[in-house]
């Protein structure tokens, strides 16, 4: 069963990193956009949604162009001994970019739905803008952000088009569960595929259930 557990562990690692990165970058970008008063902000927002619009394989191709040994960034990274193509770090980059818009949009909607009066109340109490963000804004937006983060985790877990392109399909090194399933289906190995689909599903349902438990409960009057 090693041919299931190793890809599963890799998928969890890749999706976990991608989710962490998106939690950081997605929330930061969403907060920036929610506060930025500029006519360009909706344009930037739409452009940041593009990773979702492009077919993953195509995105992966462009990532390859940029991060490959002969790519602009790839060439530069190589000088530092960093190689992304055919590594799990490459898979993380692919998954992160593909899932990024999910956190961005959910978090931005959540930020914009907060009553600014509450942030003002904190400011008046002498709390710095950064602290207001962590103590008021973030907790109040947590429901929407969590929705986005869970979507992003699920998407990163299921990513394979872009990953296949940049990280390849190297068993034990970059073959995530998604790619393994894809390969099994391609090879006509329906039983293996079904088992792996089942494992993917159960793992994700469990993780989503646990994440749901961690969610702050509602602070609304309900009788």
């Amino acid at each position: 069963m090693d041919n299931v557990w190793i890809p599963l562990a890799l998928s969890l690692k890749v999706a976990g990193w991608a989710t962490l990165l998106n939690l950081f970058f997605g929330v930061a970008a969403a907060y920036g956009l929610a506060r930025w008063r500029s006519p360009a902000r909706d344009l930037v927002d739409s452009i940041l949604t593009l990773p979702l619009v492009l077919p993953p394989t195509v995105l992966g191709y462009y990532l390859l162009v940029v991060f490959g040994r002969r790519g602009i960034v790839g060439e530069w990274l190589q000088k530092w001994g960093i190689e992304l193509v055919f590594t799990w770090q490459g898979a993380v980059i692919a998954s992160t970019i593909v899932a990024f818009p999910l956190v961005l949009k959910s978090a931005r909607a959540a930020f914009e739905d907060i009553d600014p009066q509450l942030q003002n109340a904190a400011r008046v109490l002498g709390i710095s803008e950064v602290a207001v963000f962590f103590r008021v804004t973030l907790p109040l937006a947590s429901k929407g952000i969590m929705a986005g983060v869970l979507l992003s985790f699920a998407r990163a877990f299921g990513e394979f088009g872009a990953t296949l392109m940049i990280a390849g399909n190297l068993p034990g090194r970059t073959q995530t569960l998604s790619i393994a399933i894809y390969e099994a289906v391609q090879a006509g190995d329906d039983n293996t595929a079904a088992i792996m689909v089942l494992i993917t599903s159960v793992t994700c349902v469990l993780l989503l259930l646990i994440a749901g438990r961690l969610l702050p409960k509602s602070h609304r009057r309900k009788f």
Partner: protein
Amino acid sequence: MTLSINIQKHLQADERHFHLDIRFTANSNRIVLFGPSGAGKSLTLLAVAGLLKPDQGNITLHQRTLFDHDKAICLPPQQRNVAYLFQDYALFPHLTVAQNIAFGLRKNWLNPLRHFANNHPVVLKWLKLFELQVTINSYPHQLSGGQRQRVALARALVSEPDILLLDEPFSALDSSLRERMRNELSQLQLQLNVPMLIITHDPADVKAFGEEVFEVRDGRIS
């Protein structure tokens, strides 16, 4: 001279225009604003707290300029060191009563933990004075109207402010509680010896706090 306000602000909602043009200098420490609903009292308090930026004018507190349009000075709310009771309370829904009250005691990136808030002597003092002990672990949505108002007032008073801005602080309280809280507030003001700007419709408040009383009408002092 303690507090001098001279501000103009134009607000628009749909085709409705509201002009705020408040000018007064208060020489005492107990100032009452009163006047009809919609006159501009709350907006004035917001401007003093730094939450509403006037189009023109200036605000000075003890020689310290909080706002001056011509000199392009506008201190952020954080630096004005005010105690503000919002008319609609603005309690933090994700924090307990004790955490709400302790909110301003720590200025770092983390909210006060329950344990910290529930054992902080200052928090306990205000809980007791405002008869809120039983609600210590409740969330705002589990409180009655008057309880919320008292929590909001306690939260505002906890730190040692340079000015007290109170927007109808006792409106949701019954008369006996109102009287007790009025005494507490009066004592606190004497003790801190800072200016207090209070909006009220209650003649008893005017009597207790109105060393100087300004009537606001249609956005102006009349």
